[in-house]
């Protein structure tokens, strides 16, 4: 249907979009398959013997340079720590937000707008602005250097967003289904459990993943609350390998491999649940919500 000239334009555009999105991945992956000696010759070169030794080193396999040994091990542990922190945050955050989103999306009640606004305004706060009080308070509560403080902070930062997202999702489901469940003998929470949650499962899955990625990716709070401790998560651990970190000589290929490795779980989740995530009306559930 398109004019040939438009065809060319479209394919050029598609290629540009693909390149823009993928080249940064390609570059770092390429670097991660080199030895440090090769890399200093330049990233743009043909490498006829790609090596996965950098990845193996992170898992403690193969010969690991003495300088780097500790750091490589740290990455492996950080990986586990990130799972330990982010999965419960995402699970609890999603559970709380299901309740909040259901209440906001389904019921009229006094102060609804005020409460919603209060909840959402907390998202505009720059994280750096609360870092000192968090650090001081959590330190006095012995919640620094272990995952508790970090999980609490993550929880408060995912709940408003997920509540909002799920509010839109619940609001867009046909209300008669919930009413039917009530007639059929469910309480409010029973109807939520037996009918609304199964119907909202794509939205809930997407919400869960958004929370997971948020907790997986965050740097500042992680650095301050668990940085350098045995509970260090991936972002601060990666930063420890980066060329910006004073005091170490950076092994770039290792840095590349660790970065790629740390980003595999988010990438898989994003790919698998892409439809759910982009299907969410993240920006403006109000317009799709019938009151």
């Amino acid at each position, binding site marked *: 249907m398109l004019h040939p000239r438009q065809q060319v334009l479209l394919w050029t555009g598609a290629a540009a979009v693909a390149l823009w999105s993928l080249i940064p991945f390609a570059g770092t992956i390429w670097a991660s398959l080199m030895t440090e000696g090769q890399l200093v010759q330049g990233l743009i070169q043909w490498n006829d013997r790609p090596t996965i030794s950098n990845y193996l080193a992170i898992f403690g396999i193969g010969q690991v340079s003495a300088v780097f040994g500790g750091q490589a091990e740290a990455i492996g542990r950080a990986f586990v720590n990130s799972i330990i922190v982010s999965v419960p945050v995402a699970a609890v955050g999603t559970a709380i937000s299901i309740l909040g989103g259901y209440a906001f999306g389904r019921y009229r009640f006094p102060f609804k707008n005020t409460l919603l606004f209060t909840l959402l305004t907390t998202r505009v706060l720059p994280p750096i602005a609360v870092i000192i009080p968090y650090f001081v308070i959590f330190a006095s509560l012995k919640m620094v250097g272990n995952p508790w403080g970090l999980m609490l902070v993550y929880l408060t930062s995912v709940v408003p967003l997920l509540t909002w997202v799920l509010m839109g999702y619940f609001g867009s489901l046909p209300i008669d289904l919930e*009413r*039917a469940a009530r*007639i059929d003998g469910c309480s409010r929470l029973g109807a939520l459990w037996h009918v609304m949650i199964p119907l909202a499962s794509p939205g809930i899955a997407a919400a869960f993943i958004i929370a997971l990625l948020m907790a997986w990716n965050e740097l500042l709070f992680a650095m301050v609350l668990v940085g350098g401790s045995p509970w260090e998560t991936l972002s601060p651990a990666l930063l420890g390998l980066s060329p910006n970190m004073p005091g170490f000589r950076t092994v770039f290929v290792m840095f590349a491999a660790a970065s790629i490795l740390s980003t595999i779980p988010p990438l898989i989740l994003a790919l698998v649940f892409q439809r759910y995530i982009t299907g969410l009306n993240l920006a403006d559930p109000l317009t799709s919500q019938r009151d």
Partner: protein
Amino acid sequence: MSAVTIDNVMKTYGDVVAVDSLTLEINNKEFVVLLGPSGCGKTTTLNMIAGLDVPTSGHIRFDGESVEHLPPEKRDISMVFQSIALYPHKSVYENIAFPLRMARGPKREIDSRVRSAAGLLRIEALLDRKPHQLSGGQRQRVALGRAVVRDPSVFLFDEPLSALDAKLRVDMRVEIKKLHERLGATFVYVTHDQVEALTMADRIAVIDGGRLQQYATPDEIYQRPANLIVAKFVGSPSMNFVPGRLIESAGKWRFAGEGLEVSLPEGLLDDPHRSGRSELILGIRPERAALGGTADGTGWVYATEPVGSDLFVDVTFDGPDTIDPRLFKIRTRPDLRLRSGEQVAVTLPLEHLYFFEPDGRRLWPRDGAA
């Protein structure tokens, strides 16, 4: 088995008055139809009976006991929704079984009741399907199945047949009526389709603008509509209305409308409240007016509509060439041949006339008269 009382119930949404001072007594095992145009408050009324909406004021009672404090799940009711509302993630079997599962019935009993409900509605073959694999009529049956699988004391139906085609609607009408006989429960049935109401109901409550207009048997509603609104709404095609005034000549009173003059029935003017006012609205059903005869008026044929068994003739008294004339419908024999513009005599038998006050109240036939 419950009698349902709606006692002076009011429901407002902000400025919108959805239901206005509604009082309705529904007897045990009665089949009551709430009839009214779209937006008149039927669903809202049903929802309040179900406990899905809370009245702004007034009371709902089951067997004389107030149920305001009871949530829907504890009111012992079944409901079929306007939107059908099958659970899309559950199979037909699970949809029907759901109310029983919520009541924590034994597995064996659940199974046998689901199967017998499915048998009743002839959907045994569909039990493994998901709702999206069903036709509209099948979905409707499943929704009914989900309602009848328990034996609650009150069944609520919100326009359950509105999504169906004409043929299926007629079939299902009969089935629901039979269901009522078999189950012996109280049925409250909402519709805006007066044919459904007339064919199924023990009593019809005609509602308009949130207010009860008339509450009576179908026959009574049809024969003796309480006011202009009921008269307009019930009957298909709708009753003819002719506004006019009273005229006296030589001691005799007549009604004169546009192009029509009829002498008044005996006793109409005796009403003491009428003194001084002379405006009236005459009403007559299309099947009661006749072409030819003594000629209470002379009109022109505007159009004819053959419907097989009958012929409906649209007559205008405004003149043969009026654009957008007021029409007067008459049912007649299907073999009559009439041309547009042809002049015809119209006769209005005295015993089938209705008269309404300009404010809508029925004046004639008198209340209580035979």
